[in-house]
């Protein structure tokens, strides 16, 4: 028992340095054998394709049955002029428990807002009037902008260099899967790791 306090004290800097996980941007069982960190950009067409075609299957086969824990990460690319704004709105929406709905609205209507820049108008379709006000204010909060930047920096430190990238984490091992993979091949990896 004597050792426990100094040990805990020595761990404090590590614990405080660990990235905070916004629960509204995570899905499934945190104790699942596999964690999938999905780095995506709301303005990237491949991310849209992954979100619309592949993610529902991953959710159905792995996240909902508790085999995988899904964590959304923002990775707005500099060449997309509205993607950082979209990421900020999505993170703000996470604070009111509406991340998934806003992400769906952004990806579904991506061609339109990417062209006309009406990001908030798209976001607002997934929110009530009260939530719209809150999200609009939160999106300008330095804390939210910081959260987006932290995701980007985390991705960069883990070698993410394109979107979408899924980091499949199993124990201490990390396997990056870039692009929109063939689902049967992705299943081979996930089934092998989930055993």
């Amino acid at each position, binding site marked *: 028992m004597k050792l426990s306090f100094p040990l805990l004290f020595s761990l404090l800097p590590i614990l405080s340095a660990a990235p905070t996980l916004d629960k509204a941007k995570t899905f499934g069982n945190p104790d699942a054998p596999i964690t999938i960190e999905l780095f995506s950009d709301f303005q990237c067409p*491949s991310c849209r394709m992954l979100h619309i075609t592949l993610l529902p299957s991953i959710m159905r086969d792995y996240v909902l049955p508790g085999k995988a824990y899904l964590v959304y990460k923002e990775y707005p690319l500099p060449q997309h002029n509205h993607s950082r704004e979209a990421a900020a709105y999505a993170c703000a929406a996470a604070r009111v428990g509406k991340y998934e709905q806003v992400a769906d609205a952004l990806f579904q209507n991506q061609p339109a807002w990417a062209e006309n820049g009406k990001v908030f108008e798209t976001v607002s379709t997934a929110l009530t009037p009260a939530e719209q006000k809150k999200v609009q204010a939160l999106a300008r909060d330095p804390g939210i902008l910081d959260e987006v930047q932290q995701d980007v920096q985390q991705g960069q430190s883990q*070698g993410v*260099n*394109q979107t979408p990238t899924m980091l499949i984490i199993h124990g201490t091992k990390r*396997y*990056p*899967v*870039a*692009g929109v*993979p*063939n689902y*049967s*091949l*992705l299943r*081979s*990896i996930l089934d*092998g*790791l989930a055993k």
Partner: protein
Amino acid sequence: MQSKTRHFISLLLRLILGVVFGYAAYTKLSQPWALFAISVDAYHILPEWAVTVVARGLPWLELALAVLIVLGPWRRTTSVAASTLLLVFFGMMVRAYLRGEQIDCGCFGPGEAISPLTLVRDGALLAVSGFLTWDAFQHSRRPARSFQSQYSSY
């Protein structure tokens, strides 16, 4: 080029190419095979069954080539095989790059997108392999039978 210098350069390049092939094999074999299969599939060239065959078999071929290139037996065969393989890789990468496909190179495991840098690197490896092929045919020719030995039976 003096024989000694040429021999030294050839040995050095064989070592480099062998280590590169060995490392490429190691990075693929130390990860689930389907991870490399996803990289191969991203090129959209092969049908799914062929992707599986390549993903499971290519790392072992790379490992065998690494050993043979370094040890040096059947130099003509191994250098032609290595050059052919590198030419196919390089061609696929150039094709993907020119088509604007933002995909993983798949050269040394996942997480490395095709870029001018990866093209230069693979181009350089192809040049090295090409030199070794030329060297194998130019300088490791079987000694021709001497006139005397050819006609001694007559």
